[in-house]
């Protein structure tokens, strides 16, 4: 799923239509109405908890709702691997949490590997299984517990990094020498299995 798709509010397209295009959008000719196809779309909308706004225009939905519809669009063709580029970018905290929960549920219920690239892994820490951490031209890989620790991240960045546990949540916070952090482009790839 590409990063940040802006859905035009003028586009005459319902949320359910966009999900349906995930099945056969690459085909030529006009779509024929089919009950199996409709059922498939209904089930998918249900799975991403989008039934409530299925008939609304996609461009009028909130960022989090649009993201759920785009995930449904990607999932409906039953892929074995779901690749998402910055799926949490530009979402408010509430929508961010909804999308994270949805991705975790899909990975487990539908037995799909979900691979996410992100600049901010904090919201994903509770659900991710393995991580490929890229910083300063170096890579650290392993389970979340192995990679997300003060020692390994400090070594990777060359900057002191604190990993803090608060209310069952883990927070990664960069310490002093902020300058160095700004220069190193960081990106982590997170995998939910």
């Amino acid at each position: 799923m590409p990063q940040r798709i802006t859905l035009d509010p003028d586009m005459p397209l319902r949320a359910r239509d966009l999900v349906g295009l995930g099945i056969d959008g690459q085909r030529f000719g006009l779509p024929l109405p089919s009950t199996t196809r409709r059922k498939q779309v209904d089930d998918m909308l249900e799975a991403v908890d989008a039934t409530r706004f299925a008939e609304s225009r996609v461009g009028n939905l909130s960022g989090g709702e649009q993201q759920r519809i785009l995930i449904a669009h990607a999932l409906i063709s039953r892929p074995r691997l779901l690749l998402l580029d910055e799926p949490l970018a530009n979402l408010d905290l509430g929508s961010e949490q909804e999308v994270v929960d949805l991705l975790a549920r899909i990975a487990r219920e539908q037995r799909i590997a979900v691979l996410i690239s992100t600049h901010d892994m904090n919201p994903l820490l509770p659900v991710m299984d393995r991580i490929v951490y890229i910083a300063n031209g170096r890579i650290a890989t392993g389970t979340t517990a192995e990679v997300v620790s003060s020692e390994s991240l400090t070594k990777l960045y060359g900057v002191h990094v604190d990993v803090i546990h608060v209310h069952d949540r883990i927070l990664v916070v960069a310490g002093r020498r902020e300058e160095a952090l700004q220069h190193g482009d960081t990106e982590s790839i997170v995998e939910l299995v």
Partner: protein
Amino acid sequence: MPGFLSPLIEPGFFSNLPVQTALVVGGVVAVVSGIVGTFTVMRGQSFAGHSLADIGTAGGSAAFVLGISPLFGYVAMNLMAAGVMEWIGIRRPRGRDLATGIVLGAALGLAALFLYLDTTASSTTGATVNVLFGSIFTLPASMVPFIAIFSVVAAGIVLVMYRPLILTSISADLAIAQGIRVRLVGIGYLVALALAVSLSAVTIGAILSTALLIGPAATALRITNRTGRAAVIAAGIGVTATWLGVLLAYDSYYWFPNGGGWPVSFFVVTLIFLGYLVSQLRFSGRAVAQRRSSAAQAP
């Protein structure tokens, strides 16, 4: 004809051969423009559509110089221009508007030359009026088959590529992720657009042909949430405006100032504009109300 319509419809309207041709050709062209125009608006290519219309002026006026039907001039020139836009636009992905503008300027220069040659050669303004404002009442019957063929090709391209066109309109990245050849879809679409613009140039004139392409589609997009319905509604609005325009132009024969009649393109464009105004007032009010009520429902 029912008696109550007689004040509206002047005698002889339906038995007049040029009127019959105008109703049939105008109707077909309006349907094609509505279908193609819906995607022009969705893809944000209204400027390209308008530029093709202006560029077509050069083709139409050149056809007059050569003594062939302006339709062939429009089609040849628009296809060529669409090709150039595509070529420059691909080499400089952000330069699409710029490329369009440059091609547009050059073509209008040619149009000025050809229109000048047309008027000096024939010492009438017939060619100029024909190219700029259309020739729906003076279409020779021999052109009808060509209009039919171009119509079928333009509408056919859009209907065959219906789903890939919607996906590429939403997002090129999304379409690529689904295995769609975005560039091929874009080229196919430009061909349909070039043909649709040429066809409406014949009915309501080269410089007004975007009105028939964009106006009904923009109105339809406000009315419905479904792409297919939007195309059908746009076609319906276009046909209604064209037919009413033909009727009013026929009636206007007895109007101010001296019995020359008013041009049909004026009526068509005005009716489309009024339709858009009404939809703006009516449906933007409804959208706001909807948004408010859904905000109120949210927990």
